């Protein structure tokens, strides 16, 4: 028992040898800490402050023929499309516009083709060309997206103009309907007075009004039907109930008008004609009511009946810096832990200390535990400083519990240390170890989802992502800080599992390294 206690005591003493030594060594290397921690942190901070998540305004010139009838409309649209376009004028000199684009004084040249009405009459779309001189694929995509949005907006405005025009026609129609009512009243009075000749005169004028009403109603119906069609599936779409009712009222109106068209003079009673005039009056009122609905509709609603509203389930409004800060903390801590541990074993090997350890009673487990614990302590202290900075100074929200946060940070450090120790066992020189650590950092920046969502990666390549501790920790950290919980406990378990596996692997390899040839 006493022997066991003595051995346990010595185990603690031997393990503590590395806790003290490694911690002091790291803390004494102030420039190293500044380089490893403050350097990347300042870069990320500057990036966070400097990054603007806004659409880039494009200096745009429009090329169209002199005297084009649409010039005023196009210019008006160009200047009223928001901050996406910095309108630089309209020219008919295409070459000079292209030259300016090549020289970088313009970002985009919009070429409007000549004779738009002719193209439309030929039942063809008008192709508006957007020229740019970008190399960056994301900027190329942006300009493509911008062009498409720009054209959609113009199309929408054109349709709106038609809608407004249709509503103006409806106002004319209202007047016509009023006129028709008056003619019907005049006919009624003439027939009640037995004046067939006067009634016939009025009927001729009523015919003219109903022809005009038929034309105007037909136009409005066309517009509304096309809108209905867009709402459903284009051609062959079913006609709405309201439109069908309007059509029915119009047909009845025309039929009843036909019936009162042949009034004979000298009849004793015009009772049947008077009844038909009542029906005609009723038809006109029905049509009037139906068209009031159409007139009351806002043109913007007619043209764009649907609009999007995005509702986030998150309790808070997340700024770009809030989203990236937890990921930056993860990358920073991972890089720190990997760099420290990547140097740890190769440095002992290069300095000759490993030879001393082989002869000493020190075991690989004691050495490894000591190193793990020291770097966990240092990493946790640095994590506390970094976290305090982003939460208190940058005001990144922290919705999760600090216990979960501490567990996550320790697990990340534990796994990253395992990665670093593994690299250290493969590295032959300290320079090589640092290069390996930088290689992991580079891989993490691109593959961990730090700034590029993993869904954009080809699936086999995603395997690399899931080999990196940062991939798990970034998701967990963002979820913990911005949602208040660990997104998926399986992610945490996998991160911890990788850490444990690395610990066992590194222990096995270090054990072999510290064994003598005799073993």
């Amino acid at each position: 028992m006493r022997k066991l206690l003595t051995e346990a005591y010595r185990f603690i003493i031997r393990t503590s040898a590395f806790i003290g030594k490694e911690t002091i060594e790291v803390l004494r290397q102030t420039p190293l800490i500044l380089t490893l921690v403050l350097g990347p942190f300042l870069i990320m901070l500057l990036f966070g402050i400097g990054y603007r998540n806004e659409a880039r305004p494009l200096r745009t010139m429009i090329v169209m023929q002199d005297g084009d009838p649409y010039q005023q409309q196009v210019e008006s649209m160009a200047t009223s499309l928001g901050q996406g376009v910095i309108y630089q004028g309209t020219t008919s000199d295409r070459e000079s516009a292209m030259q300016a684009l090549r020289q970088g004084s313009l970002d985009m040249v919009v070429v409007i083709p000549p004779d738009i009405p002719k193209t439309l009459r030929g039942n063809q779309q008008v192709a508006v060309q957007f020229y740019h001189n970008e190399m960056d694929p994301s900027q190329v995509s942006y300009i493509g997206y911008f062009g498409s949005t720009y054209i959609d907006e113009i199309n929408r405005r054109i349709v709106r103009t038609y809608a407004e025009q249709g509503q103006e026609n409806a106002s004319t129609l209202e007047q016509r309907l009023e006129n028709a009512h008056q003619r019907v009243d005049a006919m009624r009075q003439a027939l009640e007075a037995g004046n067939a000749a006067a009634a016939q005169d009025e009927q001729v004028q009523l015919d003219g009004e109903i022809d005009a009403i038929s034309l105007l109603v037909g136009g409005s119906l066309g517009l509304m039907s096309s809108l209905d069609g867009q709402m459903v599936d284009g051609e062959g779409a079913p006609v709405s109930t309201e439109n069908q009712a309007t059509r029915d009222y119009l047909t009845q109106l025309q039929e009843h008008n036909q019936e009162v068209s042949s009034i004979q003079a000298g009849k004793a009673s015009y009772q049947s004609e008077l009844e038909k005039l009542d029906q005609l009056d009723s038809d006109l009122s029905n049509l009037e009511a139906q068209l009031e609905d159409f007139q009351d509709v806002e043109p913007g609603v007619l043209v764009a009946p649907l609009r999007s509203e995005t509702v986030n389930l998150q309790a808070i409004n997340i700024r770009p810096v809030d989203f990236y800060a937890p990921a930056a903390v993860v990358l920073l801590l991972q890089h720190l832990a990997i760099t420290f541990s990547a140097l740890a074993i190769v440095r002992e090997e290069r300095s000759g200390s490993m030879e001393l350890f082989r002869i000493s009673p020190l075991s690989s487990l004691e050495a490894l535990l000591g190193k793990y614990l020291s770097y966990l302590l240092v990493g946790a202290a640095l994590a506390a400083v970094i976290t305090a900075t982003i939460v208190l100074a940058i005001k990144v929200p922290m919705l999760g519990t600090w216990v979960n946060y501490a567990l996550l940070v320790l697990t990340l450090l534990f796994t990253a240390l395992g990665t670093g120790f593994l690299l250290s066992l493969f590295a032959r020189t300290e320079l090589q170890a640092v290069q390996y650590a930088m290689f992991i950092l580079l891989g993490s920046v691109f593959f961990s989802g730090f700034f590029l969502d993993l869904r954009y990666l080809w699936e086999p390549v995603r395997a690399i992502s899931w080999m990196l501790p940062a991939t798990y920790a970034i998701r967990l950290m963002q979820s913990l800080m911005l949602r208040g919980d660990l997104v998926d406990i399986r992610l945490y378990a996998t991160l911890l599992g990788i850490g444990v596996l690395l610990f066992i692997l590194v222990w096995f390899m270090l054990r072999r390294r510290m064994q003598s040839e005799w073993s």
Partner: protein
Amino acid sequence: MIETALVHEKIDQNSIRADQAAAVHTIQVRNLRKQFGDQVVVDDVSFYVPHGTVFGFIGPSGCGKTTTVRMLTGIYHPTSGEVEILGKKPGKFSRQDREKIGYMPQQFVLYPDLSVWENLSFAASVYGVGFRRSQRMQELLEFVELWDHRHKKVGQISGGMQRRLSLAATLVHEPELMFLDEPTTGLDPVLRQKFWQHFHDLKESGITLFVTTQYVSDAAYCDLVGVMVDSRLAALDSPEELRRQAFGGDLVMLRSIERINYDRIQALNQLPFVRQTGRVGENEVRITVDEAATAIPELVEWSKNTGTEIESIQEFLPAYDDVFVALINKESKRA
């Protein structure tokens, strides 16, 4: 084996019975050989190191000294031959066995960013020293005269101080046996002498020291010396015996007032205790004798008898560099 025979002769001189020999030898090496690929680095080396002695393992750089130390400490496995350290094969060392051994490697391997005290504390922890650690460390730092520098970073102290700190780190767990791989290399003569004084103090406290060195003159400080030449042990004996081995006996320098002529030199050669003579100058001759202590009175007597007026007569102790060169030459001829 000539080496083994010499060692046994020395053991016999110390009146140690053969059956007790194994018990008192801290290190026993028989026919040790180490080969890396086709290259033989240590070839057929045999020696014993008795408990409480300072064993000097001398030879030029690359002769196989460090490889031998690594086999003795258990880092390398011998290609053939047998090693026993403290009665155990290095491959069978337990933790307790390792705690009895101290190793000071050739290169300084402590940590430059830690202070003298912190480095020593680390070494103590590695060996599980817990109780009375501070007191032990203070004693050691005073012993190697570094107490006043204990707060200095190791990267900022001199090479000699670093060596002394290495020595302290090797001693911190109070080992029974110490392997010191070229501890005096690069030190100035004064500091070297100090180191050897430390080694003798340690020996006095009962520690066995196995010291490798390139400095042949260091042999004078050892109880027993093994001379390595081209991977082989060329000689093994006490420093005095090595000198005798190198020159075939003790050397006596005889200087006369007059010129020593050829007839007198011939007469000297006829004396039974004289092995050979060599003229050094007109009136000076170097005489190789069985034993200087007994030969000098007889030579004085011979001078009186032959009318040779002696200006001076004394034992000549050649520098160990010369001893070493002579041994190498002998080994080369033998090979």
